[in-house]
């Protein structure tokens, strides 16, 4: 069952083309990882898929409906969006931040209804945050912060998850942990579109890899098919060795 379909999306800002003629599909039960160097247009593509940026041509549809026309609450309930992690404006309590995942269901912090509270508690459990639930978010480590935001997006219980570099600046153990959480979400029937910079981890976790370069999608398929030495070298401009799903980067070309 395909949920999100983007067809021929082109996004321009002023005179610069950020995304050119990009098409992709995201269904439940798949973990699609979007790869590409900085400035390849990955974030712009995510925003256009979500309907947060209006594409200059093409369109993204969710179950047949154009995502640009979704109202913000509907959009949030069907696609949970985890943008690049930014600092919170206030030192909020962890549980309150997770509860913001219920915003699109009408929940107000501080007086969660029974169902909302139960879902928030479960998300906190799932992301192993129970012991931190009453801490202020500004006292958390980088890894704990990302777990908090993961719990927040899981609490939305949206069928799709779109995450932008969720594991940037995390230690290896936490990188695995966060990706395990996301693949757990996918095993439970969710669909995830995730931007990563670690090709090796991407190959290990993804059901499909989408490669982007200069605003264009240059390849889309299972890691076994699209992960080649040549592709890494052209997309990232580094020399690499590929052995099955193992990747070794040797340095700039």
């Amino acid at each position, binding site marked *: 069952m395909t949920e999100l379909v983007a067809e021929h999306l082109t996004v321009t800002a002023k005179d610069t083309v950020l995304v050119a003629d990009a098409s992709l599909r995201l269904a439940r039960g798949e973990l699609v990882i979007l790869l590409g160097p900085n400035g390849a247009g990955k974030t712009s593509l995510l925003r256009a898929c979500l309907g947060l940026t209006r594409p200059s041509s093409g369109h993204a549809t969710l179950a047949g409906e154009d995502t640009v026309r979704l109202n*913000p609450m509907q959009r949030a309930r069907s696609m949970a969006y985890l*943008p690049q992690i930014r600092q919170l404006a206030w030192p909020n*309590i962890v549980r309150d931040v997770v509860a*913001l*995942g219920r915003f699109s269901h009408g929940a107000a912090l501080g007086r969660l209804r029974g169902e909302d509270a139960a879902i928030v508690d479960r998300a906190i459990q799932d992301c192993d945050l129970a012991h931190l639930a009453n801490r202020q978010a500004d006292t958390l480590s980088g890894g704990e912060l990302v777990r908090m935001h993961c719990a927040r997006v899981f609490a939305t219980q949206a069928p799709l998850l779109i995450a932008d570099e969720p594991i940037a600046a995390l230690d290896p153990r936490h990188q695995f942990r966060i990706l395990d959480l996301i693949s757990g979400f996918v095993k439970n029937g969710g669909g995830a579109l995730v931007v990563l910079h670690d090709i090796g981890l991407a190959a290990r976790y993804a059901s499909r890899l989408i490669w982007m370069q200069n605003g264009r999608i240059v390849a889309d398929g299972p890691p076994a098919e699209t992960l080649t030495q040549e592709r890494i070298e052209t997309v990232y401009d580094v020399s690499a060795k590929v052995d099955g799903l193992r990747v070794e980067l040797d340095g700039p070309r």
Partner: protein
Amino acid sequence: MTARWLTPGLIILSLIALFAACLLGSTPMPADRVLAALLGGADASDRLVVWAIRLPRALAAFLVGAALGLSGAALQGLLRNPLAEPGVLGVSATSSLAATFSIYYGLVALNPWVLPMAAIFGALVATALLALAAVRTRSVVTLILIGVGLSSFAGAAMSLLMNLAPNPFSLADMVNWMLGSVANRSFDEILLTVPFLFAGSAILLLTRRGLSALTLGEEAADGVGLNLRNQRIFTVLGAGLATGASVALAGAIGFVGIVAPHLVRPLVGHDPARSLIPSALLAGLILVIADIGVRIIPTSSELKLGVVAALIGAPVFVWIAMQRRTVHD
């Protein structure tokens, strides 16, 4: 739980302060006589003192404080900065400039509603300008600087009006607007501004949930389902109405809108939405107490409430600013 007792506690303290404001004054009145006067008994002169002088004045102080506390807390939530406030951002100054202008040109004589409308118009222009700037810059420092610019401009225009003032009477009037005071307010004047004040407050309270979402930053707030554009419009409109109404009633009174939310925030888990009502109550309470102080401090001519508020508030502002870590911008 502190949070659960915060609002009821503040309501009780506010009522006590309002009652105390009726007791205290140049000639203190014992509690039994005040109570009798409030309930419609006692002799005519007591009733006059309580109903025509002390109660409206105290109520005006409370309403003005509440409007500023609420607007401050809401603007802080919207702009994600603890230093945002109608006074600091130049909203009060612009509003009192517009009000003074309407007095100076005799527009007020046309219709009593002109004054609150002018004050609200000034406040809305300033808040809208700030909201526009906030969309463009993202930097809070820039925003505060724009507020400083607005304040200075409104101050200069005010001085210009004072230079041109036709008689000392209007000069004294203008000083009142600039410095802020609730002396000699009547129930009539309160009734003239209250509809706007309540409308603004209602808008802020009805849309407060979105302020919690903004904690995440605008990108993620979009993601959790906030309609960012509407949130900006409603917060600006609500804060403009409430601040304008408060200026129409008392002139420009600064800093309560910073101090009250700052004290409240840690008690409500730093959630902007939950800080709104307690901030309003606390700011109202602070102004009632400050106004009691203004009345009983024996000075040859009465101190202005706005001056006292700034004397206490400005150092707190500096203190908050110095405590801020520079990570945010």
